[in-house]
């Protein structure tokens, strides 16, 4: 080993240590930000080192440098601008987009090395197997994550999409990947197995994501994130770079655990989610939870304003509808109005409220909601008995008392005990069921009244009427 090779190996090792400690620190809110910065420092070290190595080797052509830096520059500008400007409601689809390009980069490296090496004669298994895995997994996450991005941003319908023969086509794609694998390993000097494996994995990623409903997307994005980690690790095998292997495997494993935890928080199993077709609006349940609640009381923004103005303790229960309507500013404004009038306001935040686990905390923090007003599940549940008015905004399944009973789609899911508060106001666009497709008996209880409107508009009206009663 030359002096430079030794220091390069050591720098890569330090960089890998930074990722591991960084991820470890990100588990606690106090150290999370520093953890991310530490992992970023590790990344910077790795990039500087590979640059020094390339300069030292002197193999790279001038065109090579130009092409490399053009790609990097455009990519950095695009990535940073997107990341800085994105509204917090759109973060999930942005993460998915970044994941897609990560998978794309890994696949591209595989394609490069396969075609580069295949110009020679035979390839060892030690090369062809990782290169195949790199291309296939990278291809799947590239197309799969792009569809997930589309579904989250509304460019692709969030409903489960299926068509006659999709299962068959999926089977053909899997078969094609296997054929390509055998071909590539057996006769590695041909281009066609490469094309076949790439096309088949892109199709597979597409077909895998299409039938999954929009609300399950976070779990899918997290799973594809873990996949990209593995693709990057295999790219590391291909170019024989250990920092790629370590970081990729780390993300692959950590991402898998995270995916399982997210699915658990949503009371769904990963296999169940991947089977797709859930939450398409068609009622799949039978027995409990299918009958539409009758005698639902409707209320007006004016009445809600009156209730709030004369309450002592108000609990705001934000849900997916609030995130979708981008009404977080209005919610914060209403809460501030009430707090300033001496009314005690808190937010009950279900772990999976919003578009992703923890997303609601990010949304509310973005509009300066004080951290100590955000109550997590257990704490919030101990407060509902003393709550005068619970204002449920665009949340449904997470408040459904049916979860306490057995025999329906949400049985056993931890819920917010909104029904224990003295009065409940539900802002919702219609009586339609939530994602789980289960009717919510909370809506027909005596203390509940419904305000049918878009969350943003309803809140604006409530703010106006509350002001009037507070004066």
């Amino acid at each position, binding site marked *: 080993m030359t002096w430079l090779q030794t220091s390069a190996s050591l720098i890569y090792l330090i960089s890998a240590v930074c990722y591991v400690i960084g991820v470890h620190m990100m588990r606690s809110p106090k150290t999370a930000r520093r953890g991310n*910065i530490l992992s970023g420092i590790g990344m910077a070290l790795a990039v500087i080192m590979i640059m020094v190595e390339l300069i030292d080797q002197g193999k790279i052509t001038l065109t090579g440098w130009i092409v490399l830096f053009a790609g990097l520059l455009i990519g950095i500008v695009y990535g940073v601008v*997107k990341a800085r400007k994105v509204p917090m409601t759109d973060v999930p689809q942005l993460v998915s987009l970044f994941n897609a390009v990560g998978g794309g980069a890994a696949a591209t490296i595989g394609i*490069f090395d396969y075609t580069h090496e295949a110009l020679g004669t035979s390839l060892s298994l030690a090369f062809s197997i990782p290169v195949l895995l790199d291309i296939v997994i990278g291809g799947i996450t590239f197309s799969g994550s792009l569809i997930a991005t589309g579904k989250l941003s509304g460019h692709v319908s969030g409903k489960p999409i299926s068509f006659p023969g999709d299962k068959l086509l999926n089977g053909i794609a899997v078969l094609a990947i296997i054929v390509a694998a055998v071909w590539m390993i057996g006769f590695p000097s041909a281009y066609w197995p490469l094309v076949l494996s790439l096309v088949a994995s892109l199709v597979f990623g597409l077909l895998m994501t299409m039938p999954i409903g929009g609300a399950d997307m976070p779990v899918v994005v997290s799973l594809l994130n873990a996949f990209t*980690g593995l693709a990057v690790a295999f790219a590391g095998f291909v170019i024989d770079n250990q920092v790629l292997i370590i970081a990729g495997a780390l*993300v692959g*494993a950590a991402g898998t655990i995270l995916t399982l935890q997210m699915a658990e928080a949503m009371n769904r199993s990963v296999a169940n989610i991947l089977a797709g077709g859930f939450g398409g609006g068609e009622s799949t349940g039978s027995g409990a939870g299918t009958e539409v609640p009758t005698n639902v009381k409707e209320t007006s923004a004016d009445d809600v304003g009156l209730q709030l103005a004369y309450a002592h303790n108000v609990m705001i229960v934000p849900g997916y509808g609030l995130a979708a309507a981008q009404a977080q500013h209005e919610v914060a404004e209403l809460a501030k109005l009430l707090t300033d009038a001496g009314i005690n306001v808190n937010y009950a935040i279900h772990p999976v409220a919003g578009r992703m686990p923890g997303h609601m905390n990010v949304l509310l923090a973005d509009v300066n909601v004080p*951290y100590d007003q955000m109550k997590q599940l257990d704490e919030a549940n101990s407060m509902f008995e003393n709550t005068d008015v619970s204002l449920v905004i665009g949340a449904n399944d997470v408040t459904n008392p049916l979860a306490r009973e057995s025999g329906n789609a949400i049985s056993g899911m931890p819920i917010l005990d909104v029904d224990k508060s003295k009065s409940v106001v539900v802002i919702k666009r219609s009586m339609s069921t939530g994602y789980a497709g289960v009717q919510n008996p909370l809506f027909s209880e005596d203390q509940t009244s419904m305000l049918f409107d878009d969350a943003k508009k309803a809140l604006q009206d409530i703010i106006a009427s509350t002001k009037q009663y507070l004066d």
Partner: protein
Amino acid sequence: MSQELYTNLAIFVLSLLVGFEVMSKIPATLQTPMMSGANAIHGVVVVGAFAIAAEANNWYFYLLAFLAAFFSAVNVSGGYTVTDRMLGMFNRPKDKPADSKKEGDQ
């Protein structure tokens, strides 16, 4: 099996185990930032983009190197920026001692 492959395989397997170990129970609040942070880490693929650019010698390979550089740069720069933005929002309560009283719940 060559020594090189064995070393890489050992590193791969051990890193997977480290990944499983380091990721115990994550509070729901941090799951989205954690996913985004992990997403940024696989942006290390940018090192691979450098490595292939060094081997490129015709238009086809230059094109692939450009693509890999572009894709990975978006991943790594965007990933860290958006994660930092999200986590920055959780930092505010620190200057308020008021939330120390919330430890007492069950």
